[in-house]
Structures are given as C-alpha cells and as structure tokens.
C-alpha cells in the first residue's frame, strides 16, 4: 500500500452514576421529556454546579484501569459553543488538567495503543427534529461522561475495532459504565489521516463523529481511508473536516470544516473550585480495582488450563466469570464446568444482553453439585446436559433431576451386569466381533443403551466390554 493510515479514537463513555455530574437529578435513561431537570442542568442564571464525587471516582478508576497516571490537582474548563442542546451555551469539560493521562490498551498482537488522556465532562441534551421543527429534551443534559482520547497509533479498521472492544470490556468490568453503543452510553469519534508509507509524518486528519456501532465504525474508517487515498492519488489535498457517516449509503459526508480548540474559547470554569484528590484516595481506588479481563484470561489459560478460545469467550462476561469461580470454590471441576457453561448455558442465554446480565435461576452451588456428579462418573455428559437445561428452565435444584434411578443405571457394578447381559443376548454379534468384524459391537452398544435409557457412560462400557470379550 502506498499510504499508511493513522487513526485515533475519542470515546465518550456515560458513567453509571445515579445523579448527574453537577446536580442531583437522576441519570435514568428515558422518561418524559424535561422531567429529569432542575435549574442547574438547564443552565438557569445564578445557579452553582456541584461536582459529583462518584463521577470523579469513576473517572479516576477508568484511568487507573488503563494504566493512566492521575492528576491529583485538577480543574474544569468551559468549552464555549452555541447549540440548542447546551442550555448554557458552553459545556463544562476539562482542557489542560484532565483527570488522568498517559495509559494504553494492548492489542492481541502485543501492539500498544496509547491513551493520551481521560477527562470528565457533561453530556448535552437531545434534539428531536420533526416536521420542520426542532424540539429539545434536557433529560440527558448533565449526565456525566468521560472522554477517552487515544494516540493516533491505530493503523487499520480492525485494530480500531479491537481497541474499542477492549476498552468497552474494561469499562464494563470495572463497573463505571454499561457501554451500550446502541443506547448511546458509548460513542466513538474517529480521526483518520493518511501519509505516504514509511514517511512517519502525520497527514491532515478528518474526524468522523458519533459512531454508535463497531461494525459501522469499521466501515466508516475503510471508506474514509479509500476516499482520502483517491484524493491524494489525484494530487489533491485533504481538507481538515468533521464528517458524518451515513449508515445507509456507507459513505462519509462533510458536516463542517473542522474547528480548532481555539474556536471553543476554552477558559477555566469559575463556578467550580480546583479539585484535590489525595494520593491515599488514588491508592484506595487502585486497590479496589477488580481483576481486569485480560489478566483473568491469562489466569484462566495459564493456571486453570482452559483453552484460549473458551477463556476468551467466558471472560467477555464478568458476571459469568464470578459465578464460574464461585462454582469452582464449591468443588466443581474446571473442565466439566467450562464445557457445560460454553455448551448448555451459553445456548440457553442466547443473546449478548442475557450473557452480559447473567441473571440465572440457578446458584453456583447447585451447579457445582451437578458438575461433581459428572466429575465422580456418577452420570454421563448427556444426562448432565439435559439435567442442567431443566434446572435452568425450572429453577429447581439438582436432586429433582438426578434421581437414584439415573445414578443406578451407571454404577460400575450395574454397568458390568448389563454388559454381561448384552453379551449373553447377542451370541452371533459377539462371535462376529471376536472373529474380526469390529462393527458387530454396535449390537451390544444398542442393547446397553436401551437397558440404561441412554444414561451409560460409553467410555466405561467400552472398557468393560473389551475386558469381558478378551477374557
């Protein structure tokens, strides 16, 4: 390729606090228009914003989770722009003293994507354009956001997606946001620039605003890359601009030629005091960070011996991992637990949302009891699978489904007796088998399956039969 792409992401993440960033109105999604509002979040004159402690803590936690350093002396700034979704005609944000800076996200390839800064700011209201009118709802106005700004280290659409997915997973793990792109609690602005391969210089960048789906983001980056390459091929120059991606046409359109920071006339916010975050507070927040997804994945493969594919699959869902680890603490084996989770439980939960919530009708302790029957060879995999499914559907405990007769059919003594019966009842098949026709043994299998109603452990059956037939 003649050109190299440099791409950086600005990711807005809505923080999962109960109240807005500068007032005590609820952050609850939805609600009738302008019912989660007060004089502060509608920008009435004479009011004073009061910074939310939890939002500040969440922003620090987010920074620490991606290896950022924390500015222990920080302040807010006014970013001036006039648009009806901002009732004050400015947004309270941070310019020169963001809450944290200098972290990274590591991709699977080992490449690190730098995180320049994470700052805290207020969300804008929502505009509804209808029949030639514009209506404004300020319920979302003042909801706390963090903006996570990456370095332009990303060099393909796939890397951009991987970076965003990893960021999303980390933010969910540490509980600062649900990061639902379809509901707008995570949105990405993407900067794209091209430069001649090997030149090492950054080209003129364009910014695609408000991507709310990862696959659209990938498409938008690819399209924009091609568009810029065509212009450069023809000897043209790229104009710095803010673009919009049209999901229907798959093309980007210019919204406005890009404003620079100076157009926003930033200045320190006079209504909010400088915030001091003591070192002990930073240390406390750091010590309370949970195990992060990629550390967990490594532990699952290296210490628990789970294969990489399943470890990756499970670690996408934090609640699932906690439940699984709890089952292990009740004595369930790793191998059978993982197989039942990735087989039966995943298909039972089916949607991403259900797996994310992991709100099961089944305790880890009860699941562990079932797994232990399997571990001890008292039931077969297929019995365990069907019992698990019934437990999930009914919410009933394991003993409702693993009854004495299920266990009986597979006890070693009983199984040997059934195998002997099978041999006695099928003299011709036995003769054929001993004579070298291996397939003849299927007649014995059929007999045993019928006699045990499919509950026999076929590995054990094989062992017993080969012992009996080789005598």
């Amino acid at each position, binding site marked *: 390729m003649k050109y190299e792409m440099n791409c950086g992401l600005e990711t807005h993440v809505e923080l999962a606090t109960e109240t807005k960033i500068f007032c*005590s109105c609820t952050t609850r999604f939805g609600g009738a228009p302008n019912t989660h509002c007060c004089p502060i979040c509608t920008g009435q004159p004479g009011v004073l914003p009061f910074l*939310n402690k939890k939002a500040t803590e969440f922003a620090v936690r987010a920074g620490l989770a991606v290896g950022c350093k924390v500015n222990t002396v920080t302040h807010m700034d006014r970013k001036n722009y006039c648009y*009806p979704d901002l009732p004050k005609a400015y947004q309270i944000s941070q310019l020169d003293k963001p809450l944290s800076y200098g972290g990274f996200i590591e991709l699977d390839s080992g490449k690190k994507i730098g995180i320049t800064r994470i700052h805290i700011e207020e969300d804008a209201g929502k505009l509804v354009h209808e029949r030639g009118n514009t*209506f404004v709802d300020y319920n979302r106005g003042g909801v706390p956001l963090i903006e996570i700004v990456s370095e332009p280290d990303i060099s393909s659409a796939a890397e951009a997606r991987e970076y965003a997915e990893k960021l999303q997973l980390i933010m969910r793990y540490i509980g600062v946001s649900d990061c639902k792109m379809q509901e707008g609690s995570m949105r990405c602005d993407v900067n794209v620039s091209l430069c001649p391969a090997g030149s090492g210089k950054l080209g003129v960048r364009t910014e695609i605003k408000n991507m709310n789906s990862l696959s659209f983001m990938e498409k938008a980056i690819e399209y924009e890359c091609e568009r810029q390459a065509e212009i450069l091929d023809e000897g043209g120059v790229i104009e710095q601009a803010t673009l919009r991606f049209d999901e229907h046409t798959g093309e980007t359109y210019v919204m406005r030629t890009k404003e620079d920071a100076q157009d926003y006339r930033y200045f320190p916010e006079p209504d909010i*005091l400088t*915030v001091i975050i003591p070192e002990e507070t930073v240390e406390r927040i750091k010590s309370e960070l949970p195990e992060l997804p990629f550390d967990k994945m490594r532990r699952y493969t290296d210490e628990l011996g789970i294969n990489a594919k399943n470890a990756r699959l499970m670690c996408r869902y934090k609640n699932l991992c906690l439940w699984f680890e709890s089952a292990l603490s009740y004595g369930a084996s790793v191998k059978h637990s993982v197989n039942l989770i990735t087989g039966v439980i995943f298909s039972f939960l089916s949607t991403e949302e259900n797996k994310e919530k992991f709100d099961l009708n089944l305790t880890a302790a009860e699941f562990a009891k079932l797994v232990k029957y399997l571990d001890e060879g008292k039931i077969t995999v297929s019995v365990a699978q069907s019992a698990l499914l019934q437990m999930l559907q009914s919410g009933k405990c394991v003993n409702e489904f693993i009854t004495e007769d299920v266990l009986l059919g597979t006890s070693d003594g009983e199984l040997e007796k059934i195998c002997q019966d099978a041999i006695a009842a099928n003299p011709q098949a036995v003769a054929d088998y001993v004579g070298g026709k291996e397939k003849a043994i299927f007649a014995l299998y059929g007999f045993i399956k019928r006699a045990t109603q499919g509950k026999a452990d076929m590995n054990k059956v094989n062992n017993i039969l080969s012992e009996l037939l080789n005598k």
Partner: protein
Amino acid sequence: MMGISEKEFAMLARLARLEFDGERKQEFMSEFEEIINFANAVNNAVAGDTESIKDTGGDNVMFEELREDTVKESLPNEKITSGVTPVNGYFTVKRVVK
C-alpha cells in the same frame, strides 16, 4: 432601561479581540442592552436559601467534600418549561440543520 455606551462597547470589543463593522456594532449594542436588563432582573430576584451553603473558604475543594451521588427530586416539567411555550413537554427552538 440601561444601555451601553459606544466607548464601553469599544473597550469590550478590544478585550475580546473582536472587530465589528457599523451594522454589526449596532446589532450587538442592542443585544447588550437586553443582556444587561436580563442580568438586572436576576439581581432583583429574591434569593433562595443561602444560609445552608457552606463557605468553602478557599480556592480548592477536597475530593471527600464533593457532592454525594444521591438523587433528589427534579422539578416538574411545568416549572422547567414555565418561561417558554413548550410542545409536548419539549422546548422548541429555531430549526437547526441535522
């Protein structure tokens, strides 16, 4: 009605590093008059409860002194939109291009 003198306007423009031609100047001067009148209306408003507001006594606030994340009731929609003519609870503005 309080206005703003040409001299005051020239000083403000210089402070803001903005240039105005004749027509724009007249336009802005009359807007300033409206702003000043509005600020005066706010000055004359009856103050609410200021007794319970703690004197922060400095330029800094410690993390622990920040606001707790506890929901308080918002204002009813009628109050929030009382200064305007709402449509189905929404504020209405001049159409902005999407």
